């Protein structure tokens, strides 16, 4: 999902709202895939890399703050746990400060689990993780209206694999500022 963060920077730095238009079909079968009705596709990757050249352009303070924030926008969890580990408390706090400072900013919290156990139950675990982060943001003064949550359970792994290294990267909440 890293592209989405990069994309958010690209959107802001280019000042484009146009990014919402459907992306054009890419060559099918390339590693980055083709596009579909949903916005998760490779045409966006092209946009993001093009935007890479523009990040050197002058950013507003908010854009710069968001770019810094998005260096750390994933909170990882222990197995079967929805507690925020101590090392991620400052990460969540940084997002909270940004959201408090920029009340028009909107964040989407995407909760995920590793692949073990039942699928719909994992939707519940992912939601619980997203809610933990949401509550931490609310406690630090973020307005409810700035936050939406979604749980993908085990359906959208960050990485493939059935070992502990993969599981650890998949148990996460992503803080996404895409529009």
């Amino acid at each position, binding site marked *: 999902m890293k592209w989405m963060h990069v994309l958010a920077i690209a959107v802001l730095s280019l000042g484009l709202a146009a990014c919402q238009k459907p992306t054009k079909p890419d060559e099918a079968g390339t590693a980055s895939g083709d596009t*579909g009705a*949903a916005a998760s*596709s490779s045409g966006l990757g092209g946009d993001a890399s093009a935007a890479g050249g523009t990040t050197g352009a002058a950013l507003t303070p908010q854009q710069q703050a968001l770019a810094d924030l998005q260096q750390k926008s994933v909170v990882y969890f222990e197995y079967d746990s929805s507690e925020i580990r101590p090392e991620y408390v400052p990460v969540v706090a940084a997002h909270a400060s940004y959201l408090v400072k920029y009340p028009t900013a909107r964040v989407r919290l995407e909760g995920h689990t590793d692949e073990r156990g*039942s699928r*719909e139950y994992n*939707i519940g675990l992912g*939601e619980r993780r997203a809610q933990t982060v*949401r509550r931490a943001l609310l406690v630090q003064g973020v307005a409810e209206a700035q936050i939406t949550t979604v749980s993908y359970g085990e359906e*959208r792994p960050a990485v493939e694999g059935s070992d502990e290294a993969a599981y650890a990267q998949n148990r996460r909440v992503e803080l996404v500022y895409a529009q």
Partner: protein
Amino acid sequence: MQSITAALRSRAAALTLLAAALLGPVPGHAQLRLDITQGVRDAVPIAVVPFGGQADGGAADVAAVIANDLRMSGRFAPLERRDLVARPTSGAEIRYEDWRLLRSDFIVVGRVEPDGSALAVSFELHNVRTGASLLAQRLPSTDKGLRATAHRIADLVFERLTGIPGAFSTRIAYVAVDGRPPAQRYRLIVADADGYNPRIILESREPIMSPSWSPDGQNLAYVSFEGKSSAIYVQRLASGERRRVSARAGINGAPAWSPDGRKLALTLSRDGNLDIYTLELATQTLTRVTSDEAIDTEPEWSRDGQSLYFTSDRAGNAQVYRVVLDQARKAERVTFTNAYNARPRVSPDGKELALVTLDRGGYRIAVMDIASRNLRVLTNARQDESPSFAPNGALVLYATRDRGRGSLAIASSDGAFQQRLSSDQGDVRDPAWQPFAPRG
């Protein structure tokens, strides 16, 4: 039932979100194939002789389809074709002593004949030891309908020999995923019970989950994230027409049809807490069933429609509970063996639950006798999930992982054997076996 395939082709108009080109056969992909992964002891040897009037091999080889079905049931061991000593096509041509030498207990013979502009398939089932004729029928068919006719014959043979109706003429739904994260493509597929004839019902860049058959076998409810959050849809297979029946804020998950087909049980989250609700489809009347701080999800109706089984971690870890609908909010725990039990599915006779259990470090499929609470673990891998009973209760279809990829597998409900349905490519998961069509 027979109209589903044809109708699926003409359903494009209803799916406004999807390209018409998606419909029709799955392009050289996701066909499931039976792999025997565990020898079946006590399987009954049976000879299924190639039918007269058609060439060996090919998708419409009636005897091959019948033999494959019987093998899939785990209860029969069809003779290899190369071992068949003769090719009788009617009972009168069978020399029983040949088949006794091959230690075949039963023999199926038959032929395909022109019948006006269509076809007819005659078949006979004989007991090799006694020479008795057990079954003899002539079924109407067509060029394109030969596989369906063969499944019907397998159903009749299976029922005659076991007393259990065959489920080979039913279909299965499952989700196939290809591509690597984050660029994955999700497809909801309906195929014949033997994995043939896969048809794409829905394709999306966003996850598709939890297909659930209506009791008449004509509709699928499922979860789709196509709108960037979860919503529940009901899709009629014959017409392709689909309706979004729940897209409330938060989670819309785990749809399960009531036995009368009028309601869905489902999981919703309000303020981030998952609870079970029922939704009357005609009126959109929503009724809350559970109210607990825990994760309550994966509802499943009892056969009498009076109560729901569901997964909850209200006791600290996932276990299965039951709640009587008109005494809602007083749920009783029903699983006590093992530290994790989830995703209950009620057997067709209502007496057992198939579920996912954490057994000796692995997530495995088990069947629990509801009255005695006796838990029978059927599988032995590490990540088995999503059990679904065959409509005759004899088999449980489930998802497993095979060399890092999702695949489907079948276990007999008594635990006697397991077999894998492997896919050519992609990850397959979340299987659901279609119920029998209502009689009459």
